């Protein structure tokens, strides 16, 4: 299984996403923002960081990168795509996922170990989890508040497209405590917390995040 990991100028967690793919026995394929080329990968991860410094709005500039046009096209054909943190913001800006991320309600950057409830275990990235399971992964962001209009929220909730919800308190003012959502077909997932930083209890709070990358293997290999 080949998983592309995009690097934009200012991307930071690309090395971590690549490591997580390797831990799940996948092959990580670096993708460069300026290329019109997905190098034949089976799935794409848009990793965290501060693409283009997060200037203007998080993800606003990265969204227009040539590689993102390829990602949008591939995603529309059903390729699994995961956006983590800044990657989630980019996927929202690119309209692959609805809504937007705004400044944390307390205005500070927050780095902490965060409990999440898995609410949807049928996406390409979450089949290894039990529904209702609680996982502990790092959250580290300054603009992680999920916002969408009421109609969109109702739709997300009604269709079971909220994938992760913050447990034990809302760390950033996200509406409905939403930590991660999925596209209508369950192939594109975006979340603010960092599963790729929870793949080994030595360097993360747990290895709870590894399940997302193992799930991907299942869905790609099983497909």
């Amino acid at each position, binding site marked *: 299984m080949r998983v592309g990991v995009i690097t934009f100028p200012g991307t930071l967690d690309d090395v971590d996403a690549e490591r997580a793919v390797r831990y799940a026995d996948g092959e990580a394929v670096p993708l460069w923002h300026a290329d019109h080329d997905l190098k034949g990968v089976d799935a794409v991860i848009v990793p965290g960081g501060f693409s283009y410094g997060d200037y*203007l*709005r998080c993800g*606003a500039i990265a969204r*227009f990168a040539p590689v993102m046009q390829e990602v949008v096209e591939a995603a529309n054909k059903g390729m699994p795509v995961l956006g983590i943190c800044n990657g989630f913001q980019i996927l*929202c*800006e690119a309209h692959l996922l*609805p*809504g*937007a991320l*705004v*400044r*944390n*309600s*307390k*205005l500070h950057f927050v780095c902490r170990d965060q409990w999440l409830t898995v609410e949807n275990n049928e996406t390409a990235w979450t089949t290894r989890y039990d529904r209702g399971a609680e996982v502990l992964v790092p959250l580290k962001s300054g603009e992680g*508040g999920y*916002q*969408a*209009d009421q109609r969109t929220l109702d739709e997300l909730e009604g269709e079971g497209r909220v994938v992760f919800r913050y447990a034990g308190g809302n760390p950033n*003012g996200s509406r409905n405590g939403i930590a991660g959502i999925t596209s209508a077909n369950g192939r594109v997932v975006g979340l603010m917390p960092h599963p790729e930083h929870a793949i080994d209890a030595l360097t993360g709070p747990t290895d709870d995040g590894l399940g997302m990358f193992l799930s991907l293997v299942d869905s790609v290999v099983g497909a």
Partner: protein
Amino acid sequence: MARVVVDVMPKPEILDPQGQAVANALPRLGFDGITTVRQGKHFELEVADDVDDATLAKIAETFLANPVIEDWVVRRVEA
């Protein structure tokens, strides 16, 4: 060369934690009588004369603002 100003504001129904923080802080600093504060962005552009209003609107709509959460206004100003 023309001078163009674009103001981008959070939509009224969207939570504005920054504006809120300012509004909450003002009375503590001894400034009373400010009932609401909303905080957005202010852009000042220098623009070639052949850039028309439709293009400016497109720049604001697709790039400077995120219409999911923000409203925008474009204004040409005298230099």
